[in-house]
């Protein structure tokens, strides 16, 4: 188990380094930040001074090593957009909004997706199953942007039930969290349905039923745990995506989180913020993968013992 974790950690660190290289150079391919941020009449001397202040006058490779050296200490440099703030400060300021929205959305995803997936599997072939599968299809197909605007129009403007945008009260979380979670609910629901159907068809489940156990006990105690392994991987990725900031939802609802920040920073070529967000996101994904891997090992002893899982 220890070796398993160590290998996962090393793999994760290498992944983060690779992401840092890709993001660093890709960001600079988009062009000169001064062509966006500087007014047209800014003098040549002022532009040169800004370039020097931002470290853009150095060779690219040198810029990268300066960046990665500082990033290792949590310093991602000064923001180009928010001149008196560091990229880290700006991100920390906005992270709370994304985390809260992400947690609400994640909770909704689990509380709705898991039970619906189980229900759909248990009631396979019934009207209920068809309704749930239609919900899944809708959730995975509908464009978030469109749904967000429609929900604002109907629920916020016409009915006046919730605010249209921003963070005003707990009601502000309702519509954005629906948008953030809808795809995850649909996907998780389908994954759980599929996994449960497979597990409920196994011999040991038949044995459990023959032993006279209640259907509830058979499903929740004997089938759910092994069926969770596959969906768990997806849930890990989903959690990172939700907590890192859902860009579309944050734009539509003017939610001052990391997704909106990423959009603004990319448009303005604020390299420090773009790089910092990418590194934070990559670190979060790698960490989540590590947690999922460890959870795998806990849930499935075959993984812990280094044997391949069999069908």
């Amino acid at each position, binding site marked *: 188990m220890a070796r398993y974790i160590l290998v996962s950690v090393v793999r994760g660190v290498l992944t983060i380094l690779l992401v840092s290289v890709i993001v660093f150079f890709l960001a600079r391919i*988009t*062009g000169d930040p001064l*062509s966006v941020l500087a007014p047209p*009449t800014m003098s040549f001397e002022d532009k040169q001074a800004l370039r020097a202040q931002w470290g853009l006058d150095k060779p690219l490779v040198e810029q990268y090593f300066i960046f990665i050296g500082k990033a290792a200490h949590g310093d991602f440099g000064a923001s180009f957009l928010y001149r008196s703030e560091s990229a880290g400060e700006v991100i920390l300021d906005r992270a709370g909004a994304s985390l809260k929205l992400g947690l609400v959305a994640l909770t909704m995803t689990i509380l709705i997706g898991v039970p619906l997936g189980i229900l759909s599997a248990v009631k396979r072939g019934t009207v209920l199953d068809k309704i749930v599968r239609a919900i899944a299809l809708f959730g995975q197909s509908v464009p978030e942007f469109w749904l967000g605007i429609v929900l604002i129009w109907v629920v916020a403007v016409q009915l*006046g039930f919730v605010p249209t945008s921003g963070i005003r009260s707990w009601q502000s979380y309702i519509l954005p969290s629906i948008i953030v979670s809808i795809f995850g609910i649909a996907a998780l629901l389908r994954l759980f349905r599929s996994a449960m159907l497979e597990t409920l068809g196994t011999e040991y489940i038949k044995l459990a039923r023959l032993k006279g156990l209640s259907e509830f006990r058979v499903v929740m105690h004997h089938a759910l745990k092994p069926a969770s392994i596959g969906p768990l991987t997806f849930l890990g990725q989903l959690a990172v995506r939700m907590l890192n900031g859902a860009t579309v939802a944050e734009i539509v609802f*003017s939610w*001052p989180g990391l997704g909106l920040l990423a959009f603004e920073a990319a448009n303005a070529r604020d390299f420090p913020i773009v790089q910092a967000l990418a590194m934070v996101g990559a670190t979060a994904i790698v960490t989540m993968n590590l947690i999922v891997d460890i959870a795998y090992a806990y849930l499935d002893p075959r993984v812990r013992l280094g044997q391949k899982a069999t069908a």
Partner: protein
Amino acid sequence: MRMNRRLRLRMIAALSSVALAGSTFGAMAQDAAAERLIYGVAPPAYGESNNPNRDIHAEDEFQLKPMYENLIGVDPETAEWIPMLAESWEMNEAGDKLTFHLRKGVQFHNDFGEMTADDVIFSWNDATYPEGANSDLGRILRTSITGMEAPDPHTLVLNLKEKIGLPFFEIISYGAAGSVIRSKADWESRGGGSPATPKMDEKPLAGTGPYQFVSREAGRNAIFEKVPYKHWRKDGEFQEIEYRYILEEATRLSALLAGEIHITVLAKELGTEAANRGMKVIKSSLPGKRWGVSFAGCYYKAEWKPATPSAEVFQKDGERLYPDSPWCDRDLRMAASKAIDRQALIDAFFAGDAEIAHTWFWLPEQKDSWNPEWDERFDEVYGYDPEGARKILEEHGEPVSIQVWAKDDIAEAISGMLSDVGFDAELVSMDRGQYNAAREAREFDRMVEFDDTASENITGFEPQGYANQDSKRAIENVEWDTMYEEVVAELDPAKRAKLWRDFGDVIYEAVMSAPLFRTYEEVVVNPEIVCGHTFPGAGMSDRYPFVENIEKC
């Protein structure tokens, strides 16, 4: 599992309370509106900062505008410059001293005392040093001025090393960014230092505007309150102003209809939708937004030089960077103008609510500098005439290939019109940053750029029509440049108007660019909260400032 009756009742009660609580959002917003005006705006696109002298882009200056003022103001009805913190100014005969007489008794917020010349020097120095300020003021102060003095608290003297013209006055006016007056005493009370930039979790430095700072949250909003005394210039009608950042226009429309915001700016079609649902559209005083097409590519080979007369940089028949650029040919420029059906564009993109412009930078409202012949001859020189355009191209002989920057739908429509008359028009897709960089590097030899401006018209001409600068939009001609330099150097308004008209005659005949239309800037308001708003819509003033002119119902 069946839901039992108790659980069902609890769920119904919970949903009902959400609905009841939520349904009061609009009503609560309306009740509070009597005190706070909420202005829905797009977030600052180029960053937020507490230092308007250095860090705030001109398009984002609204974020602190209500709390600051400049030496020179802008008349909200005519867009002309008027005295603001400076009551008057004069140049000495030698032309090496410019003296401002400051208004007495203007108070800074938060009891930081009376505004004096020392505060102006402090604010302007902060825009100048260290280099790197996001402000035009520093550039001009560094190149044109040897020093600033305050012989008494209400007199500011600029010692000039070269003649100063119109651009300087534009840069220190209310419509420009970077030259607001902030309290030196406030900064010194915080320990001083350079640059004078408070952090985002601190208050900005005290200003003299009719509103003072309350709070701001980056990415969310900025809130101001009326000063607790009679303002020297104008008292706002609302106790508080909040700029609420909402990026998506459809969401801003929703927020307006839901009563969460009271005034906003929307695209034309959304504004019409809002009006159909009971909101009111208020237009600017002037149709100050001017749209046109510029032709980029007819460059001199020589590089431009800042702060140098054009005749010392370029030669009259100097070598061209792209000798074969189609835009060096006046007839081809005329053909391009004649290809454009301005009325069709107005009908398609402005719902018919725009007027055809006969020039791009001369305003018919400024009668002293307007030539009526420009109206009379417009159809002959510029007007829509596809057959005339085709004839010019046929007489040209060879196929003419051009590029059109696919900036937006209107640019794409223009490209189609150019193709229809026989230009081989290629649409070029680039984001603004890449496009600006490439144009400034003079990479284009045959580009058509659709653009708009609400700038002050004389100084706004420079980036579009003057060769010796870096934006590289102009058809470069050193004789035109020399005439233009005379215009901007003339400080007497009557003499300047004549020079400007004479220059207009030359530019008009040369078909330097293709003027298209003029539109009013518009705001969309909740008519139960906002009964009127006066703002010029021109002279570099955007819609978001002038909040003290918003009238409460």
